[in-house]
């Protein structure tokens, strides 16, 4: 094939460059390559003469005689010739399916130039001359020899016979030689040689005949036969062989075509890649970083595009199920590749010629293209392996259908869905209870935690809370009413602290309280003392066993036991059965009471005061665990017992660890001890005091008075107590309670018959207290005590100011005077620093002023009145 009339043979064996005429070998039609370079043009230079006899030669005139009856001639010689023919044919036939030897000639005329040693071509004329005479008979021009060589013709028959014999012998010899050669060749070479040999022999013969003819004709022209005429000699004798040859040639041709096509395709691909590479380079040089779409090439996608395609495929690979896509895309890609490459073949050649690349460059590009192909194959391979692995792994997928999965999901979700999410949540319930207790009802009632009652009630948790609140309010109101209208307060306290035992009052009762303060109003003081004594009860007898204080281990053990009981009680509370069910309720009640008894006993409140120092109860309160337990515990204890507890607490107040260790808080605040004491104090204030607060808030004045007196009496130095935060808190608590009571009485909400007496008592005790405290007023302030300037010093002072305010509320005017004189310094200091801006920030200033105001308002004054 030849596009644009140019040479299109891409590769040829190196040795044949000069020989080839560029014609395709094994063409079964004559290929005229008049324009080829190897054509030496001698044919044109030929001066043809000897055309005289053309008419005779080509049958222009004269009758056609029997001279051309070759078949007839053949038949005469039949047996021998038949042998020769058969052997020749035999030689030829086995060679039918052959791959032509690569060294076979590219063009027919180059056969004559075959330099191989196996060639039987006559290189010297001597070999040919022998054969001349035998060929004469078969010359197509018997007449001319007859005409031109009468002598020969006379001796013709004889000579002819001789010639015949010679020919036959020669033929036989030839056949022998041929056979030998054939054997050799078959051993050594491929059969193409044999064919060629036979072919050559044919040609030899023909050539000899022709030469003979020429000689007989006296033709002086050493004319090489027209190159193309020879092989297509019309001699019918060799038709079969020729046909065989042609067939073989055709087969060879086809086979080679196929081979060549493969080679060509590869070559095309390489060429394509080379071209693309070069084009890419050129375009890059010209345009800089080019977008792939802006290609000036007329051809299709470039290598880069192909690569981009491949990259896209890679991406797609990663994102989706790679195997499937890969299998589809990769073969398509290669097919497309091949198509494109094939289509680009001509352009490749064209471009190559235009660009005139050197051989070396081409080689390099070819090598690169090869590398790319190999790489692409490897990538495809990898992809295929990955796809296979994934397919293997996922071979059991989809055993569960989507509907199955949805089914399971629905079931699981239905288990989670509830109308009230907090119905089963213990902590949510407790949290709610705590919030309610802080915000809703101030009274300390049992918070009953009920579970499973969310169902059947609308509006979820809020409804439950509201209902519970209502119930509690009702209950507390009823209880208060009962307490007020019921037993006399004194009676209600009868036996609150247990039975009296042992000695009677009259016979020299063992004085529990040593109230010896001559400055106080005797009557009132005595009464107060008596009351306190009474409230405390005569639990103290001579046969009290003095024990060692509880060890820490014992304390912890007892606390743990108490915790267990508390948990049981709480659980019982939750499981409180329906009140309609009498039987169960009774059972429950007995169990509940039993538990509560255990609690009470565990607290060791009733243990005599003198049992140990510290009292067991105090020891129990020492660990923070104990402090935190108390509120939980006291929820279940009745208020009378609570009062007992408070009394005990007050009585042993100074034994409390927080009170004893309070001075630590005045020291440096970065020690572990400080931290510990601080923690304990916080716990105390938060738990214990909180738990007694509601109880105190419900106490009568005389009880408060008694407690107050008790505290004063039991403390060696009440000022010490007041210097402690817990003590301060307690005192403030009492004072405020008294104030509330007083106000209640003043407003007339609750009238009390013993108001006068109680007030008198109270005042007496108060005055006593005041007297004790007055010299130490200033020392109450942590700011005065602490040397270093603590950060929250004003905050620390605040409780003191509060206390002082409460104090002032209770104080009579004379006492006010005392207060003012004592605290004037302090007040002024604060006010001045606040007003004059000696303070660090606004917070501090406000705090100072607030503190002072607390106190001054109680006095009926205000800080703004102070002008300095």
């Amino acid at each position, binding site marked *: 094939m030849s596009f644009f009339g140019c040479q299109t043979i891409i590769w040829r064996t190196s040795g044949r460059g000069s020989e080839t005429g560029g014609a395709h070998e094994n063409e079964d039609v004559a290929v005229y390559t008049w324009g080829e370079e190897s054509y030496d043009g001698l044919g044109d230079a030929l001066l043809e003469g000897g055309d005289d006899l053309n008419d005779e030669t080509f049958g222009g005139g004269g009758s056609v005689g029997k001279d051309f009856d070759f078949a007839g001639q053949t038949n005469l010689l039949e047996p021998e010739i038949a042998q020769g023919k058969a052997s020749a044919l035999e030689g030829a036939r086995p060679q039918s399916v052959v791959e032509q030897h690569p060294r076979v000639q590219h063009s027919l005329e180059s056969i004559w130039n075959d330099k191989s040693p196996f060639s039987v071509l006559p290189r010297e004329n001597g070999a040919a001359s022998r054969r001349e005479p035998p060929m004469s008979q078969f010359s197509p021009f018997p007449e001319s020899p007859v005409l031109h060589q009468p002598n020969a013709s006379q001796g013709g028959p004889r000579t002819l016979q001789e010639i015949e014999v010679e020919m036959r012998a020669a033929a036989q010899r030839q056949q022998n030689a041929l056979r030998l050669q054939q054997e050799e060749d078959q051993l050594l070479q491929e059969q193409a040689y044999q064919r060629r040999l036979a072919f050559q022999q044919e040609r030899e013969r023909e050539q000899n005949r022709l030469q003979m003819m020429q000689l007989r004709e006296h033709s002086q022209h050493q004319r090489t036969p027209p190159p193309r005429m020879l092989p297509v000699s019309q001699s019918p004798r060799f038709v079969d062989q020729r046909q065989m040859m042609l067939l073989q040639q055709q087969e060879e041709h086809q086979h080679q075509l196929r081979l060549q096509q493969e080679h060509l395709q590869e070559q095309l691909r390489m060429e394509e890649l080379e071209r693309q590479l070069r084009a890419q380079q050129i375009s890059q040089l010209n345009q800089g970083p080019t977008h792939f779409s802006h290609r000036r090439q007329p051809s299709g996608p470039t290598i880069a595009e192909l690569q981009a395609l491949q990259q896209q495929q890679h991406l797609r690979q990663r994102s989706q199920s790679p195997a499937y896509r890969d299998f589809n895309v990769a073969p398509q890609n290669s097919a497309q590749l091949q198509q494109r490459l094939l289509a680009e073949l001509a352009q490749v050649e064209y471009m190559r010629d235009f660009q005139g690349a050197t051989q070396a460059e081409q080689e390099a590009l070819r090598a690169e293209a090869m590398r790319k192909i190999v790489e692409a194959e490897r990538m495809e391979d990898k992809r295929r392996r990955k796809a296979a692995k994934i397919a293997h792994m996922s071979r*059991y997928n989809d*055993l*569960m*259908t989507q509907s*199955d999965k949805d*089914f*399971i999901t629905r079931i699981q979700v239905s288990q989670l869905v509830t109308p009230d999410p907090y119905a089963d949540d213990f902590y949510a319930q407790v949290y709610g209870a705590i919030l309610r207790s802080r915000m809703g009802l101030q009274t300390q009632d049992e918070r009953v935690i009920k579970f499973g009652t969310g169902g059947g009630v609308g509006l979820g948790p809020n409804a439950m809370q509201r209902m519970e609140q209502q119930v509690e309010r009702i209950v507390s109101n009823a209880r208060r009413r009962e307490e007020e209208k019921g037993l006399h307060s004194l009676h209600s306290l009868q036996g609150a602290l247990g039975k009296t035992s042992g000695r009677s009052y009259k016979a020299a009762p063992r004085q529990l309280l040593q109230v010896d303060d001559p400055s106080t109003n005797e009557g009132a003081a005595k009464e107060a003392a008596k009351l306190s004594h009474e409230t405390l009860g005569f639990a103290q007898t001579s046969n009290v066993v003095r024990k060692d204080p509880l060890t820490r281990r014992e304390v912890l053990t007892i606390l743990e036991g108490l915790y267990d009981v508390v948990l049981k009680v709480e659980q019982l509370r939750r499981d409180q059965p329906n009140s309609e069910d009498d039987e169960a309720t009774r059972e429950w009640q007995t169990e509940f009471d039993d538990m509560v008894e255990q609690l009470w006993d565990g607290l060791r409140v009733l243990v005599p005061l003198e049992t140990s120092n510290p009292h067991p109860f105090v020891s129990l309160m020492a660990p923070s665990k104990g402090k935190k337990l108390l509120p939980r515990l006291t929820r279940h204890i009745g208020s009378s017992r609570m009062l007992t507890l408070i009394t005990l607490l007050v009585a042993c107040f100074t034994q409390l660890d927080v009170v004893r260790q309070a001075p630590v808080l005045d020291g440096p605040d970065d020690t572990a001890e400080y931290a510990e004491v601080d923690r304990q104090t916080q716990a105390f204030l938060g738990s214990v005091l909180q738990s007694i607060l509601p109880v105190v808030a419900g106490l009568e004045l005389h009880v408060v008075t008694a407690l107050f007196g008790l505290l004063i009496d039991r403390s060696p130095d009440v000022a010490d107590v007041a210097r402690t935060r817990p003590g301060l808190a307690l005192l403030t608590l009492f004072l405020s309670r008294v104030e509330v009571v007083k106000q209640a009485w003043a407003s007339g909400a609750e009238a009390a018959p013993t108001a006068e007496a109680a007030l008198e008592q109270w005042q007496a005790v108060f005055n006593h207290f005041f007297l004790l405290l007055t010299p130490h007023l200033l020392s109450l302030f942590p700011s005065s005590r602490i040397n270093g300037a603590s950060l929250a010093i004003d905050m620390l002072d605040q409780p003191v100011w509060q206390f002082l305010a409460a104090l002032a509320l209770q104080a009579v005017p004379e006492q006010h005077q005392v207060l003012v004189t004592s605290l004037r310094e302090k007040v002024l200091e604060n006010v001045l620093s606040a007003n004059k801006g000696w303070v660090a920030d606004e917070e501090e200033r406000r705090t100072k002023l607030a503190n002072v105001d607390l106190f001054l308002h109680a006095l009926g004054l205000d800080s703004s009145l102070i002008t300095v």
Partner: protein
Amino acid sequence: MLPLSLLNAAQNKPMLVELKNGETFNGHLVNCDNFMNITLREVYQTNSEGDRFWKLKECYIRGSTIKYLRVPDTLLDAVKEEQNRARDAGRGARGAFVSGGNRGGRGAPSRARGGRGGPMRGGRGRGRG
């Protein structure tokens, strides 16, 4: 196919059971129930560290303690095969249903269809023919 049905299909097959505490039990499944409680026979028990082994003739495992079970691949192949067959059969039956009139229920037994489908088929055949 639901997990419990796969487990039921695995009766008498060998399997490996791992519990939530890491112990593994290798044995043949005897029986199972809706709570995934299973009984195995010819069991090799391994502790969670993998260094102690016991052989038990039979054992009972509470379903709630199971982390997972491993079943042999052959069982999965069989199940998958069955699923495909069922699906194709279902499709065929459903296709015939659709053409034979929708009965409002899928998966009607073929027996019923055979009984009632005869005359229907005939009628439909006439229509189609």
